[in-house]
Every structure is written in C-alpha cells, then in structure tokens.
C-alpha cells in the first residue's frame, strides 16, 4: 500500500493502480450528475455518496471530490485555505490534485481555471469559465433551528423559512444585530435559503450575480449545491436591519498596503497586533504594483 506521501513524492511509480484524479470513474460520474442537478436547482442541496479520501473528513473532502470530479489534465488549479495558498493543507491538496492529473498548479487567481477554497472568495474578480469550489462543514442553513434533517428538508420543499427569520429576529432583539459573522444565510434565486459556507460577510455580496460558477461540497454531510453564474443571491435581512459587511476603517494591509481587502488581525511580538490581507495572492499582486480588479458587483 502506498502512503499519501509516497504517492505525492513519486508520481510515476506510485500511480500505477490509481485512477486518473484519484476517484474512480463511477464516483466522478455521480458527482458530476449531482453538480448538474445543483445547477438546475440553484441553492438546493443534492445528496451524493461521499467517498473515503486520503484526507480526514472535515479537512475539505467535499471540495476535493468536486475538484477531482471536474479537473482535467489541461486545467490550472489553485487551492486556498482561509485566503492563503501556502498553508500546509492548501499545499497538500494542490499537490495531490496536480500529481494525480498532471494539471498545472498556480497561486494566481486570474490564471486558475479551478479554484478550491476554504472560507474565502478571492478579492480579485473571477470571470466567465472559472469555477470556485467551496469546502462546506455544515450545508444545512436550518440546522440551528431544526434538528431533524427530514423536517428541514420539508421546510425547504415548502419554502417554510419563518423559523429562520424568527432566529434572526431573536438575534436582533437580544444583541441589537444579526450576529452571524461567518456563513451568513442567503436566499438563492428567490427560492432556497443556503449556507454559503463559513465565508466572512465581506464575501457574501460577491456571490450575487457573479460571472463564475460556485460549487459547494460537504464531504462529511454528503451534500453538493451550486450557485450558477448570474444568479441572484441575497442575504436574509429585515427592512430596518439591513445586511452589512465588516468594516476596516482606516486600516490597511501591513505587508502590501492593500485597503480594499478583508483584513485579519494577528498578534505581534511587542504585544500589539497588525492587520494583513487574508487573500495572500491579492496582497502579492498589490505589492508588485499590479492592477487588480476587485469590483465584483457591476
């Protein structure tokens, strides 16, 4: 038996006995069918038979299966972990995908054809033909208000979202605002309430009427769902409590000087803290003085 590390080290020898893109053809076919169904019913969770992967469930198996079902030898792939291309998990996933398919690796958002991501949407606008694959821990937005999966599914079927709204109302009554930070619930195509995966509020407006295809994969929960290009995606909001993104008033990325980016705070040695752009590729481009289009909404 080859361990994952030998698999990654020696492509030629280790790949005897493995399928192209690791998954067997039947698995890929099932996943592609689930994607097509998801495209046809935007925001609807399509069940699929999540396979055992060479990484643990909860580490992006849903996203990885989507990527492997779609990737071809001529694709250019990028993997993001919380905005970062260089985290151990992102690097390992990217290498696994590249080595089992011969696809080209990249860090450049604009150059990639397939981007697998955990908890972020790139700052740089994605164009037609690009695919963003989001790793999802909890695909069911109604999980917090309804513990029964069967009941939640019939609530989706009947478009019965009053309890979701009630949870938002209660939040406003108790905290003065909707407190959901990551994974703010959205309405897709005026029909399904969807969990956008734990992306920050900053990224929510990017989902609306975008040019690229968004795929969501939850490996542990065995669900796939889709936001096709040019689909209306609206955050759930009350008329008098409108949705708002995070604000970084006056702050800029300590490394690149980027201002129009989602910033994260990290402690410094002197006991203070500094803010840096979470999208490392975007920060690199700003640092190199490149023009980057960040206007998702047009």
């Amino acid at each position, binding site marked *: 038996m080859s361990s994952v590390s030998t698999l990654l080290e020696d492509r030629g020898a280790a790949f005897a006995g493995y399928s192209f893109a690791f998954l067997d053809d039947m698995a890929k076919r099932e996943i592609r069918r689930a994607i097509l169904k998801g495209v046809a019913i935007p925001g609807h969770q399509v069940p699929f038979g999540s396979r055992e992967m060479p990484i643990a469930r909860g580490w992006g198996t849903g996203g990885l299966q989507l990527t492997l079902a779609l990737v071809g030898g001529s694709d250019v792939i990028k993997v993001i972990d919380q905005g970062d291309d260089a985290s151990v998990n992102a690097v390992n996933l990217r290498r696994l995908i590249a080595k089992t398919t011969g696809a080209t690796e990249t860090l450049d958002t604009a150059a990639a054809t397939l981007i697998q991501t955990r908890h972020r949407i790139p700052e740089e606008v994605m164009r037609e033909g690009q695919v963003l694959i989001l790793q999802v821990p909890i695909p069911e937005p109604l999980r917090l208000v309804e513990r029964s999966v069967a009941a939640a599914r*019939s609530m989706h079927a009947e*478009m019965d979202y*009053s309890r979701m709204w*009630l949870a938002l*109302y209660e939040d*406003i*009554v108790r905290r003065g605002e909707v407190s959901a930070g990551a994974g703010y619930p959205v309405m897709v195509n005026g029909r399904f309430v969807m969990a956008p995966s734990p992306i920050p509020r900053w990224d929510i407006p990017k989902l609306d009427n975008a040019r690229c295809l968004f795929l969501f994969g939850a490996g542990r929960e065995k669900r796939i769902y889709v936001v096709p290009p040019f689909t209306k995606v609206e955050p759930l909001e*009350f008329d008098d409590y409108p949705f708002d993104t995070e604000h970084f008033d006056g702050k800029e990325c300590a490394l690149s000087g980027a201002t129009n980016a989602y910033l994260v705070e990290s402690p410094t040695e002197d006991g203070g803290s500094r803010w840096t752009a979470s999208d490392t590729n975007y920060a690199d481009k700003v640092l190199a003085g490149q023009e980057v289009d960040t206007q998702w909404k047009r």
Partner: protein
Amino acid sequence: MEALTESGIRPPDTAAEQPLLRVKGLTKHYQSASGGRIVACEDVTFDVYPGEVLGIVGESGSGKSTVLQCLFQDVMPTSGEAYLSSFLGGTRNLWEADRRERRHLRTHDMSMVYQNPRQGLNLMVTAGGNIAERLLAAEWRKVADIRAKASDYLSRTEVPLDRMDDFPAFFSGGMQQRVQIAKALANNPALVLLDELTTGLDVSVQAGVLDLVRDIQHRLGMTAIVVSHDLGVIRLLADRTLVMKDGHVVEAGLTDQILEDPQHPYTQLLVNCVTH
C-alpha cells in the same frame, strides 16, 4: 396582509347567513394495540357562523379535543369534510389541502390555544418572538413593525410589555396562557380554537383569563370554538353548545337552552353535577 381597520380589528361580518366553518361527518378512529377499533369521534357535523362562539362540552374521552385537533391539522381524520369560508374561498376540504395550504391555514386562517402552553408556545423563544413567528410567516419583514404589533397583542392580553423579550419558560402558568392567546390573535385568524384553556390554572387566574377572552371576543368579534369539560366556562363564553359523549354529539343548541332545559340524559346529568 389583509385589509384591517385602523385598530387592527377585523370588520364585522354583516352577511352572517353563510357559515364560516362547515364540518360534515367528521370521524376519527384509532387502532388499539390488540387491533380493535377505537372511536375517538364519529359523524360529527356542525356549522360555525361568523362572530359566534361555539362551545363543545363533554367528559374526558368524549372526543371533543379530537375535533379541534382535526380542525387544526394536528391529527388527520379517518373521514369527513370541513370547509372554512376564508380558506381558498371555502371550496377546499381542509383535510384534502396540501402541506403548503395546511401551513397557511395554521398560520393565517386559524389559530389554536392549547391547554398546555408548551404545545402552543416555543418556550425558548421570547414572548415577542412567539408572536413574531406568525407575523414572519405572513411575510412581515420590518422589525419595528413586528415589535409594535407584538406589543399591541401582548398589551391586549395584559402581558407586561417589559417581559416581551423574556422567555415564556420563566413565566407563570397564567401569563404563559395569556402569551398563547396573544399569539393566537396574531394575523387576525378567521377562527380561533380554544382547547381547555383554563384547565390547570388556579381559580382566580382562571377568572382573569376567561374575562380576557370574553372581552377580546366582544371587541374583535372573534369567531371561536371553545372546548371544555367545565360547563362554567361554556356558560360564560359560548353562544351555542354541542354536548359530546363517547365520540358522538348527543345534544346541540343555544347554550342557555341546554343549561336550562337539557334533553339528553347525559346532558341532564352534566348540568345537575354543576348546579348542585
């Protein structure tokens, strides 16, 4: 949202000849563990007219609560038909409605006050939130409006407004029942179902809740069905009364008539029990 008068009160229905609710041949059977048939209620037929309160009285096990549970879709009957004039123009049998229509029926056209507030309220959602739930189902999307409406209902049912954002889990039984009544009034339902609403409350609180219901009924012209084993409650609230025994309606008529001149032996027994 429905057209309401300035005060949020449903305009009185002047053409009262048409019944609001028609129930025909309502029958509910259960299967016992040994495979035998248990009759909860059998061939129950009655009409309810707009603005009236219909009482259903009977001992426990007489099937009176089953009638309400069937009407509110908590339980599906074995057979029977029911038409509510406000629901799809009164053309759809309530028990043939699809799930979405049934949900509309429960959030817009009808409401139920259960004997146990636990059934009618979500105790881990604030008192205001419980009322908001029905308003949100009716597509209210402005928090300020929802809160204004919820406080309106809560003040009508004499729940102190400073408890609006508290959980009913920490309220007294009488106050929980008043929150439940406030919730039942939300969205101005055409028909309110009251199931043993004072049972389990102590006597002084019972009197307060009954006064409240009678007062609201007079002011809003609410149409209601009141189920109780207690003839005192029926005497106070109901214009007309059905007497049920062993799943059958044994006597029906004006409440005063039934209390003063009971015809069926069971009704006579019931009336004698109360007055002596």
